[in-house]
């Protein structure tokens, strides 16, 4: 099985981007690229070729679910596992996000100490199911 190395995180809040980079790079040893808007994420993903994409749900303009839809329609990116980052984590909400094609949901606020671990385990279960 290959290792998870490259992660793209799409998030409109700069504070959260900064702490996520720290959490994923320093604690998790991952290579991270950040993107602040859903509509810019596709071009960046084409170039960066991430193994996993994290999407904030509520973003101005193109929100998380619309970005996911666009990714799913993109020939090169359609199989990249996507997880949502959101404060809405009631059971029915999680089910809804999964029905859109996300491999999982990471609850906000996230703990910087364990974020990388959460991302890895979501990626591994997706890989085991043959999503990637």
């Amino acid at each position, binding site marked *: 099985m290959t290792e998870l190395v490259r992660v793209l995180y799409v998030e409109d809040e700069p504070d959260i981007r900064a702490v996520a980079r*720290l959490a994923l790079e320093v604690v998790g040893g991952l290579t991270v690229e950040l993107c602040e808007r859903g509509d810019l994420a596709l071009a960046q993903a084409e170039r960066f070729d991430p193994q996993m994409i994290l999407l904030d749900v509520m973003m101005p303009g193109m929100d998380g679910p619309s970005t996911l839809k666009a990714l799913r329609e993109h020939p090169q990116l359609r199989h990249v596992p996507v997880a949502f980052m959101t404060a809405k984590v009631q059971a029915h909400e999680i089910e809804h996000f999964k029905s859109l094609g996300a491999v999982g949901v990471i609850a906000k606020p996230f703990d910087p100490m364990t974020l990388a671990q959460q991302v890895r385990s979501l990626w591994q279960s997706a890989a085991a199911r043959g999503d990637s």
Partner: protein
Amino acid sequence: MSFNEQLLALQRQYSAKLPDILSDIRGLADALVADKHDTQKLESLAEQLHKLAGSAGTFGLSALSTQAALLDRRLETLLAADADPDWYRNESRLLQTELYNLQHFAAPDQLPGARPALSGELAKGEGLAAEVWLLEDDEFLGSSLLAHLEAFNFTARLFTSYAQLTEAYALEQPEVLVMDVLLGAEGRSVDRLQYSGLLKKAQSRLIFISARDDFNARLQAASLGAEGFFIKPLDVPKLVTRVEQVLTRLHAPAERVLIVDDDELLARYYQELLRGAGMESDILHEPERIIEVLEQKYPDIVLMDLQMPDISGQNLAAVVRQYEQWMGLPIVYLSAENDPRQQLKALNQGGDDFLTKPVDDAHLITAVKSRVVRSRQLLELMTKDSLTGLLKHATIKDSINREWAVAKRKGDTFCVAMLDIDHFKEVNDRFGHATGDEVIASVATLLRQRLRATDILGRYGGEEFAVLMANCDAMAAKVVLEDFRQRFQDLQFTSEDTSFSVTISIGLAEYRPGMDVDAETLLVNADKALYEAKKAGRNRLMVYGA
């Protein structure tokens, strides 16, 4: 920079933005009670709350995240529902108040376990590690005071001129400012200071020193809010004790209120109102659980609805009064009862005061605050020794009994120590009882400074002290107490121009899970170890059975 330092830097950045975020939310919250329904503002409010809920916890502010998420969900319900207009009006008013109070949830996360475990290397005290500034142009006196303050674990800074102090004060402010108000060189006195910009802006608690005692100077000091006025030659231990008292008052825990009311919205409104005034409260809807809840929450005061569906407030108060430990608990009734005879009848049955509904907001806050202050003072008088502020003999014995029961159940280790001042009779005979009292008070102050806030300290007898150190073994306790013993030995006392120092002997006994000893025996063991320490030449610590 290490990960932790970087994380801390990001947390600080976020905290710096927080006041603006919260003030935006407060601004939008007003739309909740506006006459015209402003959909755009309310949506923007929901969005802000959602963002806050999702981010604050990542920056170490979990309580704020949780509260924001809760309010976000309630706002959603409020906006979605085809609500009953009465409910909508009450709920939106409550939500607005709660949104205004969000800042009270912005305290950084506490590390798990309120009671820190003592490790062997932790010999640093956990007393009130506060910043104390000192203005004194007599450099000799100044540095001696400085040394004393530092021995008691304060971070102290000495300024020798008023100009120097003013300059530093513009940048940061200490918790306590001790000022000599009659500086020789600059000739400034209290009345000139009154007009100076410095004290007008002062956030610090003030203690004044003066070479001259006169009523007018004291009056002026009082009007400036000074909490102490000391005349030269200075009684340094007394001054340090005063600094400590001022800080203790400053850091007094928030008032805890228990609200017993069957009207849920109203109870929550009271809760928010009290929170806005910095008080903590819990709501009890099932009156039959009151004794259980009192034991869990230990409130300072109970606010009780007089007319509840199944039980009257006065009967409930009478039940509370059947328990000896709740005899002194203030109970204030809230009621729509206007008939003075009915009010008196209710007061007769265990209530302390009566507030008529609808209660004026400011009146409620003042009534609760002043009652709590008084009842805390009374409790202090009942349980604390007046000279040292430590627990009295009976109370410390009760505390040790209680800790023993808890430790036995939970399988914790704890220590009991007995301390005794060496040759105390000689101090009294040579320098008089006033000086002897000063030495006793200094033991208490230094103990409080060097031990953890959760340790229990008592004055056991004349010059004998008992200490209970929870969740800590003999090795760790020994490190802390040895450090205390040495620091005490280094303190210089003065009386009639003679300077002297005093030593202390300590006996320590440890309780380990599985040991078949009761609290009484532990105290006896500590006392035996103390006797060994005395016999071996005093000024030392002995561990029982070691």
